[in-house]
Each structure stands twice: as C-alpha cells, then as structure tokens.
C-alpha cells in the first residue's frame, strides 16, 4: 500500500475497501448486475435429464441392483458371504455407516450454522446440503440393517429395547435427525413449490400432482412467512445439538468398549470434527457437479468456492488437530495393549492405508486450498473429492485395525479369521449403498430446485436496494 492519506479513496484497491465493517466486495460481485426474477426462475427450475443425466442414473441403478443381488445372497446364506469373522466382527458395513452418519452432518453445518451465524453467501447451498443429509441418513439406517445378522428381528429393537444400550441411543438419535432434516428440507421448500406449481408447463403431470399434494396450501402471505420463518429458526437451533448428539452417540459405539484405539475419551469430538470436514467436502463436490450439470455459474459463483475452500481448510486443520491428539498421545506412552495396534497403523500392515488417508484426507487438500489459485472451482472440487475419499478410508481404519488387535491372542480359530479383506458381496453392497445415496440426491435434485428459488429472488432484491 502507498502512503496516501486515508481519504484518498481512489488509490485503494477495491478489494481492500472496508465500509462500515462489511466484507470486502469482490471484483466479480461488483460487476455482476442483479438478475431479474424471471431469469432466476428459468435458471433454477428443475430440468429434465439430458443424455449424461440418464446415463448417470442408469449406472447408479445398475450398481444398486448388483448390491441388491449381493444382499439377497447375504440374506439367504447369512453373513458368511462376507469376510467378517469372529475377530473382525465389524467390517466395511459399519465403517460405511459411520461415513454416512458423518456426511449427514453437512445439513446442520451449512443450513443451520451458516444461517444462525448470518452467513448470507451460503444460502444457495442449503438445499444441496439438506438433500445430501437426508440421503445420507436414509442409507445410514439401511446399511446398519444390512449389517444385522438377523434383520427379520429388527422390530425387537422397539419392543425389547434397552435404554442402557448405545445402539438404542443411536437408533433414537438417527430417527430424530432424519425427521429434523426432512423438516428442514421441507419448510424452505414450500415457497419454491408455489413457484413450481405456477410454471406448470415445465413440470410433468405426475410431478405437478405431487407438488400440489405437498405444498399447494402455501400462498406466500405474510402470516405464512412468519410462521415458516419461526419454524425454520427453531429447526436450525434444534438441529445443532441433535447433530452433535448423533455423531457423538455413533462414536460411543466404539468408545464404550475397552479395545485399543477405541478406548478414547476424545472420540466424540474427534468424530464430529471429521464429520464436519467430510460434510463440507461432500457439499463442495455436489456444488461443482450441479453447477456444471445445470449451468448454475451465476448462482454458485467462484466466490462460493473461495469461501468453501477456506472453510475446508479450517475444518481440515481442526480434524488434523484431533487426529494428532488421538494418535500422538498413545504413541508417546506405547501401552502394551495399544503398542501393536499403533505400530500396525504407523509402520505395519495398515501403514499405507493410514498415511494415504491422512495425506489425501487432510494434508494435501489443505495445501491445495491454502493458495488463492487453489480455491478456484476445479481445484476445490478435486480437494473435495480427496477429502471424501480420504474420509471413507479413515472410517475403515477406525473400525478394522482395532478388531485385529484383541487383548487375548487370536488363537484356536481358522486361519481366515486372522485378516480381513471384504468379499465381493460386501463391496457390492457398500458401493450399492453409495450409489443409492447418490441416486436419491440426483432424484431429489431432479424434483426440487437445487438452489432455493424464492430465497435467491429475495436476496437479489436485497442486493438491488
């Protein structure tokens, strides 16, 4: 900066202009003119699938069908079709479950936290976040049923449930979170349904009937808006403790046992930090894909990637901090029961996977995103993918290595019990669940506008003033 006097404004770069404590206005935003309502609606109404969309859906359905066949085999022959055995009694179904629960926290992060903190730029992302949350929580429940040895007795959980069991707490919290996320998807959707109903020619007949069924009563009157705003505020406040609870309780499925690697007081916070990170990563990936697929450059701008990139860095750093607490302190002590487990992770059988997960999941994305060039849409997208992939393997590393280092030696069991690599059925079902979640996201994005139309209109009016 030059030494011009402070009132000589023309010498200051526009980016550094601070007016009344407001955020610096980027060049891009200042250039963009306010979009008119009709344009917004035209851009944001759900569009029919193009060729790419149809192939995408087809591939997802195919993967789901293979998964369904694998599950049929599992129902028929029992869990013996998996590679899980008496020592590794929890495998990738459970790590996938934790992964899904982690991702579902994105809804509370983007929608609730941003909203309560008054972060305005995040509003186009709320619908994506909620759809991901709903899809993830549905498949979390489904994959946990898949993991049960006797799923036909599922109702026992409700008739004979013990309130002392962490699994019952998990069932309760997941159900609660599902309904809260559903409501948080539904309430802001009501104004958009009104718009969808207005533009009948763009929607098919069946969809039109569906919209009418779920939201024709919304007229947009001030009283209705007042009630809706109040409800959304309550939801945003309520969802945060519930989101914290859901992942803390899921972490307690491990932390309430004695095993090395799981017997940690750190687990609740560790899991939540990881959940926020992978949720943000998932949103970034979805943002980029939808932006490209539906040409939403005007609404999901480069600024959004810039901001989300910074948030990703922050969350990655926090998660890295928790990881260091989780691994360095036991490493310093090297307790007998934990020594083999830790050595296995750092330099043994699990070392390649462990360092891969740390690097891809936290360190490399952070490095990419620390640079301004790295916060452009494409690099952020790549960083997001790395975060999500790293997170999936990280969850696997939470579940399996601990089980392979029990207190008493693995003995008097068949040789296959001493290691674990998932069978094709497990892979098929896991990929099927991931494909299914993506299918739900795709279909919900097809039915509902992926960016809230009414909110965008309202905000455009506000910036115009």
């Amino acid at each position, binding site marked *: 900066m030059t030494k011009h006097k402070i009132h000589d404004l023309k010498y200051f770069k526009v980016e550094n202009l601070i007016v009344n404590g407001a955020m610096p206005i980027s060049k891009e935003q200042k250039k963009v003119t306010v979009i008119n309502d009709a344009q917004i609606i035209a851009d944001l109404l759900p569009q029919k699938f193009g060729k790419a969309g149809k192939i995408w859906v087809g591939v997802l359905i195919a993967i789901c069908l293979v998964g369904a066949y694998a599950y049929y085999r599992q129902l028929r022959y029992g869990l*013996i079709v998996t590679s899980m055995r008496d020592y590794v009694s929890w495998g990738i179904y459970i790590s996938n479950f934790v992964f899904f629960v982690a991702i579902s926290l994105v809804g509370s992060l983007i929608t609730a936290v941003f909203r309560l903190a008054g972060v305005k730029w995040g509003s186009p992302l709320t619908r994506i976040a909620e759809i991901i949350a709903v899809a993830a929580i549905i498949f979390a429940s489904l994959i946990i049923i898949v993991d049960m040895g006797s799923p036909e007795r599922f109702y026992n959980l409700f008739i004979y449930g013990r309130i002392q069991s962490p699994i019952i707490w998990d069932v309760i919290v997941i159900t609660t979170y599902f309904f809260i996320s559903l409501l948080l998807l539904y309430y802001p959707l009501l104004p958009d349904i009104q718009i969808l109903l207005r533009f009948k020619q763009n929607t098919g007949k069946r969809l039109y009937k569906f919209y009418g069924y779920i939201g024709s009563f919304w007229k947009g009157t001030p009283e209705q808006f007042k009630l809706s705003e109040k409800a959304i505020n309550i939801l945003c406040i309520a969802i945060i403790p519930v989101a914290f609870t859901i992942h803390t309780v899921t972490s307690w499925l491990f932390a309430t046992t004695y095993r090395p690697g799981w017997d940690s007081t750190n687990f609740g916070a560790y899991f939540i930090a990881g959940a926020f990170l992978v949720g943000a990563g998932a949103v970034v990936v979805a943002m980029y894909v939808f932006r490209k697929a539906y040409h939403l450059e005007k609404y999901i701008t480069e600024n959004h990637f810039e901001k989300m990139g910074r948030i990703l860095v922050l969350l990655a750093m926090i998660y890295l901090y928790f990881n260091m607490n989780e691994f360095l302190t036991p490493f310093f002590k090297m307790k007998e029961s934990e020594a083999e487990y830790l050595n296995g992770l750092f330099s043994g059988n699990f070392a390649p996977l462990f360092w891969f997960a740390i690097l891809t999941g936290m360190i490399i994305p952070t490095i990419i995103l620390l640079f301004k060039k790295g916060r452009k849409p494409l690099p952020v997208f790549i960083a997001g993918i790395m975060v999500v992939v790293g997170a999936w393997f990280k969850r696997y590393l939470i579940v399996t290595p601990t089980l392979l280092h029990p207190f008493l030696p693995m003995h008097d069991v068949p040789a296959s019990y001493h290691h674990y690599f998932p069978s094709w059925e497990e892979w098929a079902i896991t990929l099927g669940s991931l494909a299914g979640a993506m299918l739900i996201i795709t279909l919900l994005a097809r039915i509902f506008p992926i960016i809230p139309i009414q909110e965008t209109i309202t905000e455009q009016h506000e910036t115009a003033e």
Partner: protein
Amino acid sequence: MMDQQNNSRRDFLLTGLAVAGIAAGCNNKKDVFEAGAEDGAKASGKKVKLLSVDGEVIEVDEAFLKPVPHLPPVTNTEARIGIPGKKFVMVIDLSRCKNLKHCQSACNHAHELNPGENWIKVDPMKSADHAAPYWEPTTCMHCDEPPCVKVCPVDATFKREDGIVLIDSDRCIGCRFCMAACPYSTRVFNWGEPEIPAIVASQPYSAETSIPQKKGTVGKCDFCADMTRMGMLPHCVSACPNGTFFFGDINEDSVTNGAETFRFSELIRDKAGYRLMEDLGTKPSVYYLPPVNRNFPFESGLENDKAQNS
C-alpha cells in the same frame, strides 16, 4: 477291582471293552436318586413296597423315589432368572494345562458347535518377555459387571441371579456389539447356517442348553447352565483328564474338578489365584491359579496346537 467283575461270564470282546469303558468314561459316581432328594419333593401319598437293606419290606412314598429325570429345558423366562441362592465360580489351574483340548472337544460336542467355533480357547500365553510361556484355557468369564450385557440393545444377553450370563438366540438381532465389547474375545458368531442334525435344529431354542445355535446370532460358553441346574458339573470340567477346571458355588465356598474338591477361599489364598484383566473392572467369575510347579513343560502342548493353528 476289575477282576471281581466276573470275566468268565463275559464275551471275549466285552471284557476288554468293559474294563476300558469303566476306566475311561466320564463316570458320574452319583446315585441318580440322591440328586433328586435335593429337590425337596412333596409326598404324593402313593406308597410303594420295596425291599430294604435289612431284607424287610418297607413302604416308601413314591414321590421321594423319583430319580432326577433328564430335566426338560426350562422356559426362557425361567432361564433369565436362574437358580436362586447360587453364584457359580470357576477356577482354572494353569499348572495342569497341557493343551490337550479335551475340554474344547467335549464342549463343542455337547453344544453341537460348528467347526472353528470354539467356546473354549486354549491360548499360549506369556506374562512378560523373559517369563516362561504357559497354556491358558479361556471360557466366558461370566463377569459380574458384564460389558456385553451393558451394550445389548434388545436384552438378548442377560445376567442371572446365579451369575451366569446367557444368550437368548430367539431374540438376538445379530448386531455383534457384544462381541466388540467383550475384552476377552470369548463370543463367537454363527455366520452361516449351523451344521447340526435336522432333529436338533428343529427343537425350540433353550437358553440354558444353548441348543440349537441359530444363523445370524451370537454364541458363547454358558457354564453349562442345564448341567448346573441338575447339580452336575459342566462338560469341560469333567472332560479334562488333568483336572484343570474347578467349578463350584462361591456361596458354598467349594470348588471341584470331579475328583478333587477344595475350599474355594483356601485355594485362591494358597495358590494366589487371580482374574484376567482385573483392571478393566469387569469382575469376572473365572479365577486362575498361576502356573507354579507345572506338571508338564509348555512344549508338550505344541503338537496339539498345530492342527488348528498351523
């Protein structure tokens, strides 16, 4: 002793068999009628004329004569409560274990277990780097603060009044949380359909016998709850030729391996009995006597180990 048993009256073949049979079989020297006397049968009023030792005819109430029948399994509701007034405890003498694994095969046979599903495992253990290795049989510890029972979501595994922790395979949903929670790795899972004869598989499940095992549920040592109900010892206790397992009621302060009976408190005091992983606070019901003055060298058990653990 055997000479008296009239060799001349027997077939050539039977003589040899009888000698071997009486010596080797798990003979229960108990008079079958005596065991029933503890049940406190009520007089039925119907009298039976029998010969007494003196050669006199005496009348005895029929009810007092009933031998202990092979008790049908109790209902699962009764199985959840247990045998009142008793608290079972097991003592394993590590100086006697030679890794013969008779306990394992007797247990597997009695409960119709699948191959590879051993409720009893005999592990080679070493308490420190320069300490000598020994064989350590482990069963379910039937902890007084069982972590497995704490985490079961549907009450499928439960602790009874008499200290035994059982599994109700009709209720288990197969979530395997109990397997993750158990620090002694004692629980096994029926990953596939159990290979048991159809006639056994079609019986209704009894929590005390743990038969028949079901696909998709958890199984573990049950301290042979059906045997203890009849006042008999668990199969592993009777099967070990070295008498490694001692079993009894801590309320009676007495444990036995079938041949020798000791006062439990004295045994633990004199031989410095301890429990596994005491610091975890699970309060197990199985005590171990350290491998002092061993009867066999550790290496004598290695051969037997190869079959399962090559």
